[in-house]
């Protein structure tokens, strides 16, 4: 298919009065799904708004589906489905009206798929949109985006406020989108379990800066917690790639972001256990480490 990356951000800078997004670079290939994770206020929504043309960068380059943003947004958005949990539809119109509205604008609208989604998401087309709960509203907006089959989906907290059943359905729909290797998804989420499960790539962001961006399996392989028991008073040398060290008497816990069996052999008999880390643990450890490095 097309060799162009779906998203390319290079050294993007965006400044506000109390917050600045600094030197952000990001890549998304077709056929991939990227999870975008960061604490509140890290800059996820700002990044997503930059990608969808709502904001213009102060410096740096943004290309989405090959179009420069925000200049090319009118054309780019024909193929982008953007949903944010803050988004709302026009009050006093029904879901059915919205479906017809969207269908008349986008040739890619699939009425059969839309019907299936209505059923899966447990929505009622005749219902007035103003009567929907916030979770149902998000589902409605997602339905309108998914049924158009856009090439790129950009989602800001799509599962927040959804019950587990709805989340399960939604994740299923996302993975269905990726059956097509010319389509891709970028989604931000606090739900690290979901991110860990379905993402191909994961990007961590904190306080306006990129912390790490890598393949998911890469993260899961590189990070380990090593539990040691050493005789009291043993001095551990400064080891490379040890991101944190917690000492509790004889018991030492090391966190490394570049695990290799050599490290374990080096540590020798003191090693009690080597534990894999969940994405959430990796995320927290990574952010803490970077904050230390930056002296925040």
């Amino acid at each position, binding site marked *: 298919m097309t060799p162009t990356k779906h998203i390319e951000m290079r050294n993007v800078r965006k400044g506000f009065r109390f917050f600045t997004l600094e030197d952000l670079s990001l890549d998304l290939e077709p056929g991939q799904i990227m999870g975008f994770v960061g604490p509140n206020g890290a800059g996820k929504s700002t990044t997503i708004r930059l990608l969808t043309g709502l904001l213009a960068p102060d410096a740096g380059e943004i290309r989405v589906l090959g179009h420069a943003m925000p200049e090319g947004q009118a054309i780019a958005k024909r193929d982008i489905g953007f949903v944010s949990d803050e988004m709302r539809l026009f009050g006093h119109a029904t879901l059915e009206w919205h479906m017809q509205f969207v269908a008349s604008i986008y040739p890619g609208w699939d009425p059969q798929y839309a019907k299936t989604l209505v059923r899966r998401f447990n929505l009622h087309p005749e219902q007035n949109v103003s009567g929907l709960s916030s979770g149902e509203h998000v589902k409605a907006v997602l339905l309108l985006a998914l049924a158009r089959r856009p090439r790129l989906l950009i989602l800001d907290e799509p599962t927040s406020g959804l019950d587990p059943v709805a989340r399960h359905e939604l994740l*299923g729909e996302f993975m269905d989108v990726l059956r097509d290797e010319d389509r891709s998804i970028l989604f931000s989420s606090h739900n690290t379990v979901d991110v860990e*499960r379905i993402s191909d790539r994961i990007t961590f962001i904190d306080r306006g800066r990129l912390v790490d961006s890598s393949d998911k399996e890469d993260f899961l392989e590189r990070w380990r917690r090593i539990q040691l028991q050493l005789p009291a008073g043993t001095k551990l040398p400064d080891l490379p790639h040890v991101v944190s060290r917690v000492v509790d008497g004889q018991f030492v816990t090391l966190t490394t972001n570049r695990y290799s069996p050599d490290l374990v052999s080096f540590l020798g008999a003191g090693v009690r256990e080597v534990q894999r880390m969940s994405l959430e643990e990796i995320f927290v450890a990574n952010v803490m480490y970077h904050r230390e490095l930056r002296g925040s």
Partner: protein
Amino acid sequence: MLHRNDERPPTRAYGLTTSLAREKYFSKGLVFDSKLSIHCIHSMYSGINISQTDARPMYLQIMEQIRARIAAGDWAAGKELPSIRALAAALSVSVITIKRAYLDLENEGVIVTRHGKGSFVADVNGLAGELQEGKLDEHLAAAAGIGRQLGLNEEDLAARLRSAIRNLDKK
């Protein structure tokens, strides 16, 4: 078990459902369904399950379940595996995890990937048996380890194995 009860709309070639006379906003490539029909895929991997609470990484769980099916003979030699994307969609697991599982299985010689054609169960005589034997060795190694922890000697351990075999025959 991640199994969908209602039909999934198959991915389809664009332009079939929309009037081609309309403004050509989008230039999309044609989208083809994966090599197997949706129904086929359902019957092939229903039952493969990724547990959230299992401490083992997802790719290992997938590998083990595929190996088990080959060992049991459910997935016969030469049988085509679901495409990576199709399996990923069906299990709601990232493509990269399935890729890794398939890659490692290929390195083990359990499956064979033909570029552009797909992945197939390796057509090696006795593969099922080999996998079963591999499983046996794993269990025996674990048993030996526990035996040592308990302080059993070789004879005690062997005796316990014999009694386990006898119990099996009784059932």
